[in-house]
Structure formats: structure tokens, C-alpha cells
């Protein structure tokens, strides 16, 4: 009896134990659908339902997308109990994150690209320091605020050729014999593919252009070397003859189409036979032709009211080159049309941020121009998604099939009806996580001031408006300019002033040296100066041209305007609206600097104020 009693007591204890164990507050109904949300979760795992999906190749009506840890998965691959959070796509149109196949990247290029839905950029020449600093982050599946970057790194050009004019010293090639080593060096630097600059007319005796070019034999040798080392070789050409040469040399693709002449049958045939693709970059050709497309985007597009001053500035004015052949842009479009009709693969690329184009925004316009050149809207989307995926070694980007990275856009309207609907962005998603799109950027409500007086330097360098004056030189860009600042008792008006002395070095191609008025401790937060119209200051010093620089937190490239300095003290007054590309609501610093024209300089600043 005792034994049975023990067992009964034990069972009772176990029951009591179990009844004490915690239960969920709401009993989970296994396999049931959790109530749908219309917000994307923070984590990269969820099911996006009630959407129409373009997977890069074809459309799927009224379907869903399962995303797990930043990648697209097949809906059944997780056990049904591991229910993914359901997000109601509300009939949106899902397309893969766009790929701009022709960019040049620095500063905030990758941020801006992503804000406008370009999740991957194929760079065609940049400072390899920038490229290498960004290269790693494309491997991650964690949330990112920047587009992924692939790059040709340093391009292949001749001494004095196109590409050498930007001030970054780059290696050049002279003979075909150097080709294998030259290509190997680029790959060792981390280049993902090889970009070659070629201009057939440079070898002609009557060549008037400003650039030299590698010759045909070298072009051929570089292409061959690239292929031997198993990478793509793409060629920058700007005219028919060069394009024909590039095709003959065995290039994999042309990274521009050309205005001027209409593509010859021979070129089309060569491109067909060798499956050469083309990135027409109609965006830059339109700017060269002065089509005014950037201005149209600023004035009348879904982007209009959200464009950052820097982006606006970039597309406000076209290159509008003089002495262009007749029908330059019309012919560029016609060439795109001919090549497309001949079955040649057309890729979407903009050549941003060359003048008249800007990252992200311009790609949407490029798609419009591709449709105007005879592509269907779906083909235009393929040009910015699946074709780059199929051609370039960029991993699982550019499509939304199982295994792809979950880089995608949700559009409010059907881009098949009008390719401009790619601009109707609801969500931008990178690695499965929603990122702030251009219309969601947090406006930093910067501090502002009623009084415009910065400083009269009566007693020291501490300003009344702003944080402090600091030395600023191109040493932060590895230049070797120098400067010192000090407070002097007898300046311009025989009272206190700020004296700046320095030298301009030659290491950085765009040197500067001088002083900056910083509005906060870091350059990441800004100050609101939009209630002022002009900046006024007294200055005397080394005779010459000096520059006033304005820095916004997001754009690392300052806007600037120049002014003259004399030995005599004089007042300089500059209208703020004359300094283009500045967001005056959010200024991080204003600088007075010398440039290359004054190798040794000094100046005294006094009575700085805004009015």
C-alpha cells in the first residue's frame, strides 16, 4: 500500500508542477495565419502577401514572396509551424532592386542610390580607396543603408587619356605587351571587371580632342588579357568607329552608345555574333545634348519635392556641349532601338554623377528613355535587373527567385502600364529590411539663430554664432597643405581679428587650406541658416582669389564660391542663394580657404555676420 501511495503522491506532485509551468498569454494556434501587418518588420524574415511580383524575367500576378534572413526562400521550405510574419503588400508591385550598370562612386553615392531604389551599382571607374572601403559590405545580409558596390576600379587608359583628368594619379598603359600585367594588377587591386577607354580617332593625324587613347593593338591585348584572366572587358566608346573596333577586339560590352552616326550593319552584326551587350547611358548622352531632362525631373516628378540640394544641383544644368553632330541624341536613341531590334542585350546605366545625372534618380529616367527607344517596360526593367545579373558576376542580385538577396522595391502602380511608375516607390528593401526611401529621410531640425553676428574677434576666436573656428586643409584627403590660425589684436580695423597663414601643397589635385567655422562638434550635424540672405565679412591679405566653402552633413563635397582678396581691408558680401547646391537648413560648416593660385598665403578675417 505504501508503494502505491508514494506513486500517487508523486503523480500529484508532477501534476502540480506542470500546472505551475508558464503558459503563453495567447494560446498559439499552430499553423494559423497571424494577423497581417502592413509594416515591414525589422528582421529580414517575413512573408509579403497580396503583391504582383516581377522576378527579373517575368511577372507573377497576385502572389507572395517569402523572405528569410535577407534572402528569398521558397514558401514551403520552412516548417509550417515556423510561421513567418505576414505582411500585407496591399496589391503593390514588387520589382527587384534596380541596378545601375554605369556609375562612378564617391561620397554619398551609395546612400543616395539606395534611397531611390538602386540597390546595386556597377561602377565604371572610381578611386580604389573608396571602392575597397565599401567592397566588404556587399557580402553582408544585415541591414544596410547603402547600395552594394561592384567596380572596375581603375580604368585602362593611356597617358593623357580620358580618366587621367580627375587629379587622382592612375597607372596608364602604353603597349600591348603590358596588357597581361596591367590587367593582373587591376584584379589584384580588387576590380570586379575591366573597363577600357578607347577612342579610335585619337590616332588620326587631325585629332583635335583633348585626350589621347590607347591604340587598337593595346585594346585587343587588354581584352584578351582580361579574358585569359577570366573577367569581363567592357569598353568606353563614344563613336561608331571606336565601337566597331571594340567589337572586333572581342569586347564583352560597350558601356555607352553613341550619337553622331547611326550604327553600321557591320557593327550590329559583330555585336550579334559575339553577343556583345551595350549600356547606352542615354542619361549622360541626353545631358551632353542638352535635353533638359534633369530640370524636368526637378520640376515635375514624384522626386521633385524631396530632392536633396546636392542632387538638384547635379541635374539642374546639362553638359549641353557645343558643336555636336546634328540629331546627336535622337541618333543615340535610334542606335539603342536598332541594337535592341537586332536582339542585342541592352542594360540600364546612367554614368552618374557626371553633370546632368545623379545617383538613383537618373536611373528611373534612363528606364523612361529606354522605353522611348523601343524597349517594352518589362524589357526596360530587365535591363536594370535580370540582364546585369546574367552578365556581371554580382551574385544573386537582380532577380527575386529563390535564393536571391531580398533587395526589392514595392511600387504603388504597375510599371507595365507606364515605366514612370517605377518612381511611385512605396518601400525600398535591402537585404530583406526596409530602408528609408527618398521621401522618408529624417529632416534634421537643426538649431537656428536670430542674430546673424558670428564674431568681431574683439577678444578671442570663440564665435557668437557657431561652435568654433578650426584649421582645415586638404591633409584630410592626404594632401600636404598647411595652415595655422590665431587671434591678433590689431587686424582689419585696428581691433581683434582672425589671422590665417598657410601654404598650399601639390599632393592633392584640388588643394585647399584655411579656416572653417564649425557649427557643432562634428560635421555630421548641421545648423539652420535659412533665415538669412547674405554672409558678410571683412578681409585683407595675400592678393588673389580665395573661396568660401559651405559644407552640408550628408554631402561630403562642399559647395563653393570665390571672392577676391586685396592687401587693403574690404568688405565682402555674398548672397547665400549664389552658392548653389547648399541645403541652408542644415549647414555643418563654412570655410574661408585658399587654393592652388596662392601657394603661400595669409589673410585676416573680421566682422563676420549673416543678414
Amino acid at each position, binding site marked *: 500500500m505504501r508503494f502505491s501511495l508514494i506513486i500517487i503522491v508523486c503523480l500529484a506532485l508532477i501534476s502540480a508542477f506542470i500546472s505551475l509551468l508558464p503558459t503563453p*498569454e495567447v494560446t498559439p494556434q499552430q499553423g494559423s495565419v497571424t494577423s497581417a501587418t502592413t509594416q515591414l518588420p525589422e528582421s529580414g524574415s517575413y512573408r509579403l502577401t497580396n503583391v504582383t511580383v516581377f522576378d527579373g524575367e517575368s511577372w507573377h500576378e497576385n502572389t507572395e514572396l517569402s523572405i528569410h534572413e535577407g534572402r528569398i526562400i521558397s514558401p514551403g521550405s520552412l516548417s509550417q509551424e515556423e510561421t513567418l510574419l505576414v505582411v500585407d503588400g496591399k496589391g503593390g508591385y514588387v520589382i527587384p532592386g534596380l541596378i545601375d550598370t554605369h556609375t562612378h562612386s564617391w561620397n554619398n553615392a551609395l546612400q543616395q542610390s539606395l534611397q531611390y531604389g538602386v540597390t546595386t551599382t556597377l561602377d565604371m571607374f572610381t578611386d580604389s580607396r573608396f571602392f575597397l572601403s565599401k567592397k566588404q559590405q556587399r557580402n553582408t545580409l544585415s541591414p544596410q543603408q547603402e547600395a552594394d558596390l561592384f567596380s572596375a576600379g581603375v580604368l585602362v587608359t593611356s597617358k593623357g587619356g580620358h580618366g587621367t583628368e580627375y587629379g587622382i594619379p592612375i597607372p596608364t598603359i602604353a603597349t600591348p605587351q603590358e596588357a597581361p600585367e596591367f590587367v593582373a594588377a587591376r584584379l589584384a587591386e580588387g576590380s570586379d571587371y575591366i573597363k577600357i577607354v578607347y577612342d579610335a580617332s585619337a590616332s588620326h593625324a587631325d585629332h583635335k580632342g583633348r585626350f589621347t587613347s590607347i591604340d587598337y593593338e593595346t585594346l585587343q591585348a587588354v581584352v584578351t588579357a582580361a579574358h585569359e584572366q577570366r573577367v569581363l572587358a567592357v569598353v568606353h566608346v563614344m563613336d561608331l568607329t571606336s565601337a566597331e573596333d571594340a567589337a572586333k577586339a572581342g569586347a564583352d560590352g560597350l558601356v555607352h552608345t553613341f550619337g553622331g552616326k547611326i550604327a553600321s550593319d557591320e557593327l550590329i552584326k559583330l555585336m550579334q555574333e559575339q553577343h556583345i551587350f551595350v549600356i547606352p547611358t542615354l542619361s549622360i548622352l541626353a545631358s551632353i545634348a542638352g535635353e533638359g531632362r534633369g530640370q524636368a525631373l526637378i520640376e515635375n516628378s514624384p522626386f521633385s519635392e524631396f530632392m536633396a540640394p546636392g542632387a538638384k544641383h547635379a541635374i539642374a544644368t546639362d553638359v549641353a556641349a557645343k558643336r555636336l553632330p546634328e540629331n546627336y541624341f535622337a541618333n543615340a536613341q535610334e542606335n539603342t532601338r536598332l541594337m535592341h531590334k537586332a536582339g542585342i542585350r541592352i542594360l540600364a546605366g546612367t554614368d552618374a554623377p557626371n553633370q546632368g545625372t545623379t545617383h538613383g534618380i537618373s536611373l528611373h529616367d534612363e528606364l523612361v528613355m529606354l522605353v522611348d527607344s523601343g524597349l517594352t517596360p518589362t524589357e526596360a526593367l530587365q535591363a536594370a535587373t535580370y540582364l546585369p545579373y546574367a552578365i556581371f558576376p554580382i551574385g544573386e542580385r537582380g532577380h527575386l527567385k529563390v535564393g536571391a538577396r531580398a533587395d526589392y522595391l514595392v511600387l504603388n502602380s504597375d510599371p507595365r502600364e507606364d515605366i514612370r511608375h517605377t518612381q511611385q516607390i512605396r518601400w525600398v528593401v535591402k537585404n530583406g529590411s526596409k530602408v528609408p526611401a527618398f521621401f522618408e529621410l529624417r529632416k534634421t531640425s537643426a538649431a537656428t539663430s536670430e542674430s546673424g553676428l558670428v564674431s568681431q574677434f574683439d577678444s578671442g576666436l570663440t564665435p557668437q554664432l557657431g561652435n568654433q573656428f578650426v584649421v582645415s586643409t586638404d591633409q584630410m584627403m592626404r594632401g600636404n597643405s598647411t595652415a595655422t590660425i590665431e587671434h591678433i589684436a590689431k587686424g582689419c580695423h585696428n581691433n581683434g581679428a582672425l589671422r590665417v597663414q598657410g601654404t598650399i601643397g601639390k599632393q592633392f589635385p584640388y588643394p585647399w587650406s584655411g579656416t572653417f567655422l564649425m557649427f557643432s562638434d562634428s560635421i555630421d550635424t548641421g545648423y539652420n541658416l535659412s533665415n538669412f540672405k547674405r554672409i558678410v565679412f571683412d578681409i585683407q591679405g595675400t592678393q588673389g582669389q580665395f573661396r568660401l566653402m559651405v559644407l552640408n552633413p550628408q554631402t561630403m563635397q562642399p559647395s563653393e564660391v570665390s571672392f577676391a582678396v586685396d592687401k587693403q581691408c574690404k568688405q565682402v558680401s555674398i548672397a547665400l542663394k549664389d552658392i548653389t547646391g547648399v541645403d541652408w537648413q542644415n549647414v555643418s560648416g563654412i570655410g574661408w580657404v585658399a587654393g592652388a593660385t596662392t601657394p603661400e598665403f595669409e589673410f585676416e578675417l573680421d566682422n563676420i555676420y549673416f543678414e
Partner: protein
Amino acid sequence: MNISQPAPLSLARRWTILQLETKTELVKTFRTPAFVIPALLFPVMFYVFFGLLFNAIGGHPGNAAKYMMATYAVFGGIGPALFSFGADVASDKDKGILSLKLVSPMPVSSYFAARIFTAMLFALIIIMSLFTLGAVFGEVTMTHQQWFLTLVTVLSGTLPFCAMGLFIGLSVSAKAAPAIVNIVYLPMAFLSGLWVPIHLFPASLEMLANVFPAYHLAQLTLAIQGNDSGAPWYLHVAALVAYTLIFLGLSVKQFKRVDNRH
């Protein structure tokens, strides 16, 4: 007319014998701290390390702790079953105690039933410790039915491992038995996903896991909380029953070979 044949035992007598045998078995086991402490401590310790501490580092509080609670319950449950039968039976066999029990009037079923009971009692203690840890430190929540089913499943799931242990115990010497049991127990536990969730394994290893009974028991337990890999529950039950029968069959064969001339 076989006079030497003893009269069949009454049910009451059998019950008393079983009680006595169980009691002595329990007393004997609990007087072996070298067995008690590791058997109880290891699963609990592993669970604290892998289920709770790691869980606190990653996201999703509760779910990993719940998953690991089930797999470590299985790990803790099958250990005593394997050792109680594997090592102890081998030792009883070598010392002649098994032969002694066989010639005693006690039905041999009582001998095994007492061992099963002991193994299950250990499993029960381990499971309850894990439940407590998971509930208190791992934020694990389940319905009462889920808690209860988990307990019952792991407890009854020890049976195939009793059979497995029995086969080992009858097959090898007392000296070799603990080593052999460990060789079977530890790799099987790992490869069945008891330590590390099975879906973190390469697909080929996940396939391979199907050959281990521990995998099927773990999946069965995980199915209760909805964290299994998706195969229907009755397949796992069938696999476990099949393993029990196979090892029982093999054990009967070995049992007949036991040398009783001590």
C-alpha cells in the same frame, strides 16, 4: 506431472516482488553518486550553456530556449536508460547476479521493470529540472497540454533506449560496456540534433540523422511545440517502435547466450 515446477505466482506476490526489486534498484542506484551526479548534471549544465546563455545573446527570446529544452530533455532522458541497462546489466551479467536472479523465483520481468522504472525516474527528474530552468530563465511558455505531452513523450521515449542498452549490456563485458554506451550515446546525441538544432546541419547530415532513434524522439518532442522538421509524427513513432522491437529481438538472442555457469 512436473513437481519441480513452482506454482505460478499470484498477482499480489508479483506486485510485492516488483516493489522490492524497484526499491533495491533505486537504493543501489542512488548509492552510486558517480552515476547519479553526471546523469543529472550533464543535461542540465549543457542546457544552461547552450540553451539559456546563448539564447540570451541572440534574438527571439523563448524560442531557442524552448527548442533546446525539448532536445536536452531527450538527451537527459535517454542517458539513464542506456546506462542503467547497458552498463549495469553487463556488470550484473559478469558478476553472476543476473544468473542468480534468473534462478531465483522472481520473474525476470520484474528485474527489467524495476530498471525501466529507475531509468524513467531519472528522466523525470532531469525533465523537471529542465522545465524549471526553461520556464524561469528561458522565458519558455507552452500550454499545459504541451508541457504534459513533452513529459510523457520523453518518458515513454526512453523505452527504445532501454532496449538498446539491454542489447549492449548483454553483448559486451562489464569493462567494455560504459565505453560502448558512450560511443553510441554521445555521437548519436550530437548527430540527432540534441545539442545543436538539426536545421543548422548540412542537408546530408540531416538525412543521416534519420537512422538514429534519438532523432525521431527529438522530432516527436519538437512536434509538440511546433519546431519539428515537418515529417508526420506517426513516422517517428513507427521508427521508435521498430527500434524497440529490433533491439528486444536482438536482446532475446543474446540473453539465451548468457553464460550462467558462475
